[in-house]
């Protein structure tokens, strides 16, 4: 039975939620505002910033100095590539753990999660040396591999959680009808887990898109994605607030738009299995 909530209470809750949402969104809004100001106006007091004129000069300057499209392409290749490579490994792994659990499955899952507890800088030098010897420093292939490895525990964990919600009997029925393992995973399990897989894909693309440790440390000029594009406008000596804001807006806009259009899938996937 639904709980009765008075109108005033509802209004209050909505107002609080709206306020919290605004506070969380405010930094992004402020970046957008600064990106349309001149460098001189961008450093003034907040009131002066809001009342000063609007300009596109920062976008023009950023575009003239940096190759946005190259960085954007690298970001797309790295984030999409690492996510799908991760899925190729994670789907079978999560299937086996969810439907054919062994004595140590739980331990293996915890061990995988524990690899995320090590600060990345702890393995920077070994990975740098391996990449140097393999000749994949500053390449998209190198970044796809390293980001896939970094996000793999999360992908496996998410898929494992979703797969566990799917009754094993359905897969068993498919098997009794003569489905091979490949058919079972491809035609029975995957369609049922689409919301879960979709949200895993979306979340990992976002994580890989925003990843700023490996993408800065393993790239130089060729494979640098949008994180390096933003970093090139950050400076402790010199005023680049407007240009830095413009670069940030250009870097987050694609992922923000993608997130906006896919929010339904994202929320459905994240709450998948919450209610039985």
């Amino acid at each position, binding site marked *: 039975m639904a709980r009765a909530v008075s109108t005033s209470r509802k209004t209050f809750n909505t107002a609080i939620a709206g306020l919290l949402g605004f506070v969380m969104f405010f930094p992004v809004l402020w970046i957008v505002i600064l990106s349309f100001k001149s460098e*001189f106006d961008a450093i003034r007091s907040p009131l002066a910033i809001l009342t000063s004129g609007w300009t596109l000069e920062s976008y023009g300057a950023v575009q003239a100095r940096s190759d946005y499209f190259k960085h954007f392409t690298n970001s797309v290749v790295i984030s999409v590539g690492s996510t799908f490579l991760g899925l190729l490994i994670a789907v079978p792994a999560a299937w086996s753990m969810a439907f054919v659990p062994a004595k140590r499955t739980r331990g293996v899952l915890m061990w995988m999660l524990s690899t995320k507890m090590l600060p990345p800088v702890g393995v920077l030098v070994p990975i740098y040396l391996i990449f*140097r010897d393999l000749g994949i420093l500053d390449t998209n292939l190198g970044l796809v591999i390293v980001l896939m490895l970094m996000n793999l525990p999360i992908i496996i964990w998410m898929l494992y959680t979703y797969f566990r919600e799917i009754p094993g009997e359905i897969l068993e029925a498919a098997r009794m009808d003569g489905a091979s393992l490949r058919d079972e995973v491809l035609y029975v399990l995957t369609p049922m887990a689409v919301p879960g897989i979709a949200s895993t894909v979306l979340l990992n693309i976002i994580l890989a898109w925003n990843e700023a440790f490996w993408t800065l440390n393993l790239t130089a000029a060729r494979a640098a994605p949008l994180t*390096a594009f933003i970093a090139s406008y950050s400076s*402790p000596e010199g*005023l680049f607030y407007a240009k830095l804001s413009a670069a940030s807006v250009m870097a987050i806009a694609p992922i923000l738009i993608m997130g906006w259009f896919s929010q339904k899938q994202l929320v459905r996937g994240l709450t998948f299995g919450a209610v039985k």
Partner: protein
Amino acid sequence: MRLKTTLLAASALALVAAAGASAEELTIATVNNSDMIIMQELSDRFTAETGHTLNWVVLEENVLRQRVTTDIATNGGSFDIVTIGAYEAPIWGAQGWLNSLDDFGDDYDYEDILEPVRNGLSVDGSLYAVPFYAESSFTFYRTDLFEAAGIEAPTEQITYDEFAEIVAAVHDPDNDVFGTCQRGKAGWGENMAFVGPMVNAFGGQWFDMDWNPTIDSPEWHAAITYYVDLMNAYGPPGASSNGHNENRALFADGRCATWIDATSAAGYIYNPDESSVADVTGFFQAPRQVTDKGTGWFWAWALAVPSSSQKVDAAKEFLAWATSKDYVELVGETKGWVAAPPGTRASTYANPAYEEAAPFAGTVLNSILAANPADPTLNPVPYTGVQFVAIPEFQGIGNFVGQQIAAALAGQTTVDEALAASQQMAVREMTRAGYID
């Protein structure tokens, strides 16, 4: 006839092949500041002259430091040219991470590079990085506010006590003008760049001749107490999170009466497109207290060729071009003389066009020539560096002390506690590194 044509064609092909072989693709790692942006814009001319193309990797200073350190230490070879500061140049040069740069020829005119700058980038007489621009520190002040308060701008070096009196007289928070803005944000290159020379002025030093840390000395105590009291009384609110950029923005917006910071910021403060106080700003030397030694800092951004680069000759060609007298002239003629890279060459300051465009030129030159990284303190010290100590351990120690002092400024700890914790950490680090037992 046929043979002749064939021979000619073969020779032409060989020439093209030779030209193709000598044209290299260089990767240059650099920081994001106006001088470097101008270099990036003008580098097309270098490409047109030599055929070498450049890939630019522009990063924030601390990210760049970490990125380049990893690459050089692992012999990664990702970069052919790196931008480094006066702190790294002697350390990395001594470690064999950089190629020496003594072979640019007579045309380069090494003697024209200002002596403190040359010395600061050399190890045992060998130059390991060539300066792109150099800076010291001095006091920016608002001529209109001084006039209104009836204060005459100092012509001689004043003491920090006299400076405090001036600051008190021009402090006007009701009109949103603060007596002084100084760096408070923690970091060896942020608040410690200001605090270091101030400690020198108060007679303090980082280490004694046996490398024992002396951060809990009475001199440090007097300097930091002065700094915290001054900033709390006359500084802007939240000063402990203000670095160079924040103060520069505050000063350019007309909200600070005084500011002791990098001479290289003068060009921006004087530029009416970027500053609302361009026509009411003056300069005087950074104050002294018990000594005038080490009272203005010394910093240079320089270009170097890592030993891991496979294209050393082409990289050196670029360095010789970007730090030459001709380059300074090129910037002056194409971007205006006020934008010419400051602080590196005597010829820049001998140029009447520069002197006319940059009224602060003489004060900057004097500040740089007065900075002596080899003798920065009242009492003798075993290290070089005015606002830093040129040893690898300093980065960690400087950052920690910077955090402690920022905490004292924010009121989270007392000056005594901050200095005691700093001393304890410095002793531990220096013991671990084998300097002391």
